[in-house]
């Protein structure tokens, strides 16, 4: 770093100067170099212009790096300019230039000159540093960034690795102490052998969760490594691991993903949303509200990710037409979809997981989750409209071309298939009793049947839906996750947590002593899973807590089954807390960033996120309380 310290000089840092064009800036530089005596006769301005004719030195992102060899120089020079008015520079991305750094070098310093060029290019290419340079208030501040910031950025680059290993170490120590000190009366899990398995399983489960949180693109790798270590440390064996992977749940998710991909390709969802909005959307507020409403319904009947991709796609079209603000649409639609994903059994992977783990039917969802989710949706739409009423775009209507793109004949077939699937899912329990087959057989059967039809219908093109429909990456992640989470149950971790939870719930003040434990546990699970789901994907949270609830229910607390529903509601509603709270949030933000080439800020989300999550969780808690008291 010292070698650069000598090159950058505060006298050559110029902040917020204004130039009419490139020529004026080049002339200024030539005059400056001559005044300071660095060059005498060389026509620097002309040489710079010639260099720009060969090819623009604008490297994109508002940065230009004009660079030249100057015969009369005895050492390299760097001149930093932050322009008051961006200049046209014919840069590769056609963006006007805000930062210009001139690099001049004697001809005999070619290696150092290249090194210096790379250092500056690499430095300015880092978004955080560029943004700091653009905001810097003094030459001293710019100098500090140019000379020292790269060193700091290297430390920053590895901060997640440091956080990861430190957290794991602390979790290891904490879980070891915790499980050694919890003694459940008459439980086999109090022995040293099981305690060892407990803290290893807990540490490895968190190694996967933290890995997902801090290194999202590598989440599958973290899952695979955690599972390998569980096997090698003897915490589990191969046979149990395969059982823990919840293959029926995984198969059902795969079937739904294939069907949704097919329905989406046929344009069914787009058509349904367009029709509904045409009917309801006479004013901007109604249009926004109806889009949120249908996004939520789609979220309940397909999956939250497909629903959000369809409705955000339509919202982008609307915003392009009205030149409005996409942010309220994006936040409103994602929140409605997350809440709507608790409407039915198939809306969210956690719903499917709960259905198989707790043996809930589609009708159980209608009785316990649908109405609660629906009322929360109304509340959410009201508050979102209140928060963003001034930001909604002008009056508009859905563009005709969106509807014209859909093949009507294919649409009819896809609608029949979709309705058949819904009817089979709703009546799965009835059909199972009629055929005297095992519970949940028809859930899987409906998936296999519909996918079978699609494969016949699409003939040789059917391979496309099998290959592209399921997100195989996510499926593999789910399998690793389920196996890791099930190890917590197998080793008795969840039983001990349930024991602690039960003891804690007894201390929550409640006026009905007989229902104190139910209300206490329910409140802890609802808010706990809700808040945690705001920061970590909701599935690991629910997968880890389901065995805890199983243990609590096994203890025979009154209305124990409500605890499962509190997990579903907490997991789905909590996803609204932050922009990373659920897969739907990440997909919508990804679509926004890809379309508008802008970065979505954490703070853009937080205001609405905190208000809506707090209100919906509180509302759900009150409704659960009424239910318990009845």
């Amino acid at each position, binding site marked *: 770093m010292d070698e650069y310290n000598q090159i950058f000089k505060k006298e050559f840092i110029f902040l917020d100067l204004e130039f009419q064009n490139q020529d004026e800036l080049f002339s200024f530089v030539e005059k400056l170099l001559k005044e300071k005596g660095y060059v005498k006769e060389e026509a620097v301005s002309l040489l710079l212009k010639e*260099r720009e*004719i*060969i*090819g*623009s*030195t*604008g*490297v*994109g992102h508002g940065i230009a790096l004009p*660079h030249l060899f100057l015969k009369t120089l005895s050492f390299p020079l760097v001149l930093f300019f932050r322009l008051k008015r961006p200049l046209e520079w*014919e*840069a*590769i*991305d*056609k963006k006007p230039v805000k930062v210009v750094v001139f690099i001049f070098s004697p001809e005999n310093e070619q290696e150092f000159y*290249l*090194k210096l*060029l*790379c*250092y500056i*290019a*690499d430095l300015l*290419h880092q978004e955080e540093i560029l943004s700091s340079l653009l905001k810097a208030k003094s030459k001293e501040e710019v100098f500090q960034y140019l000379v020292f910031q790269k060193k700091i950025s290297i430390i920053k*680059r590895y901060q997640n690795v440091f956080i990861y290993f430190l957290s794991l170490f602390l979790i290891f120590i904490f879980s070891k102490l915790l499980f050694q000190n919890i003694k459940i009366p008459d439980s086999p899990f109090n022995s040293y052998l099981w305690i060892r398995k407990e803290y290893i399983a807990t540490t490895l489960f968190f190694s996967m969760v933290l890995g997902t949180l801090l290194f999202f693109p590598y989440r599958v790798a973290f899952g695979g490594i955690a599972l390998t270590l569980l096997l090698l440390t003897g915490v589990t064996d191969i046979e149990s691991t395969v059982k823990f992977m919840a293959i029926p749940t995984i198969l059902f998710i795969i079937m739904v993903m294939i069907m949704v991909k097919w329905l989406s390709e046929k344009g069914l969802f787009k058509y349904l949303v367009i029709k509904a909005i045409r009917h309801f959307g006479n004013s901007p507020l109604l249009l926004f509200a109806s889009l949120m409403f249908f996004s939520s319904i789609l979220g309940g009947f397909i999956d939250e990710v497909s629903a959000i991709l369809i409705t955000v796609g339509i919202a982008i079209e609307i915003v392009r037409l009205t030149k409005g603000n996409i942010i309220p649409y994006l936040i409103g639609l994602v929140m409605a979809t997350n809440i709507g994903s608790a409407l039915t059994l198939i809306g969210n992977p956690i719903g499917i997981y709960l259905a198989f783990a707790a043996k809930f039917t589609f009708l159980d969802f209608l009785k316990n989750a649908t109405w609660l989710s629906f009322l929360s949706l109304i509340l959410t739409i009201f508050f979102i409209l209140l928060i963003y009423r001034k930001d909604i775009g002008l009056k508009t209507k859905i563009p005709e071309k969106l509807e014209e793109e859909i093949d009507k004949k294919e649409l009819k077939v896809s609608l029949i298939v979709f309705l058949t699937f819904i009817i089979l899912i709703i009546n799965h329990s009835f059909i199972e009793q009629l055929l005297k087959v095992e519970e949940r057989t028809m859930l899987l059967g409906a998936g296999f049947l519909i996918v079978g039809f699609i494969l016949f219908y699409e003939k040789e093109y059917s391979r496309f839906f099998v290959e*592209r429909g399921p997100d195989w990456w996510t499926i593999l992640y789910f399998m690793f996750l389920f196996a890791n989470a099930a190890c917590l149950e197998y080793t008795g971790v969840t039983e001990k947590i349930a024991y602690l939870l039960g003891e804690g719930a007894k201390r929550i003040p409640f006026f009905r002593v007989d229902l104190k434990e139910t209300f206490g546990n329910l409140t802890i699970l609802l808010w706990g899973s809700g808040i945690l789901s705001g920061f970590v994907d909701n599935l690991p949270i629910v997968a880890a807590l389901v065995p805890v609830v199983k243990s609590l229910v096994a203890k025979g607390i009154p209305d124990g089954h409500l605890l499962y529903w509190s997990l579903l509601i907490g997991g789905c509603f909590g996803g609204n807390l932050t922009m990373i709270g659920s897969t739907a949030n990440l997909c919508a933000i990804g679509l926004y960033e*890809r379309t508008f*080439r802008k970065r979505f800020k954490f703070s853009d989300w937080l205001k609405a996120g905190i208000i809506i999550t707090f209100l919906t969780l509180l509302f759900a808690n009150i409704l659960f309380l009424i239910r318990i008291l009845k």
Partner: protein
Amino acid sequence: MANIILIIDKKNDFYKRFLDYFKKDKKKLILLAFPEKEEKGEYWHFLFSLGEKLQKEKISFSIGLEEGSLFSLLDLVKTISCEIVILPKSKFLLLGEEYDDFLKELNCPLLIY
């Protein structure tokens, strides 16, 4: 002047053939790289060195370093008037939904090496 976008992969020196080919034409070359985070410094060095050679040969060129997926490239192609995109097969995952969308939206020929 038409633009040729050439994505450089240091490990695949097939790009040299394209450089030789386009030297004969009066086209403007846009030399881009999509390196991993830790390779950025190396790639800047590589691109600037290449730039020095091209400058001596009076070949019109610009250089740049980009991050991200095929969509970052697509945005760039859409922004500038481009005659052809030349892409190394080793740099991107040329399969899956993202690649399908990239091909659908690309408004010029694509050459893969």
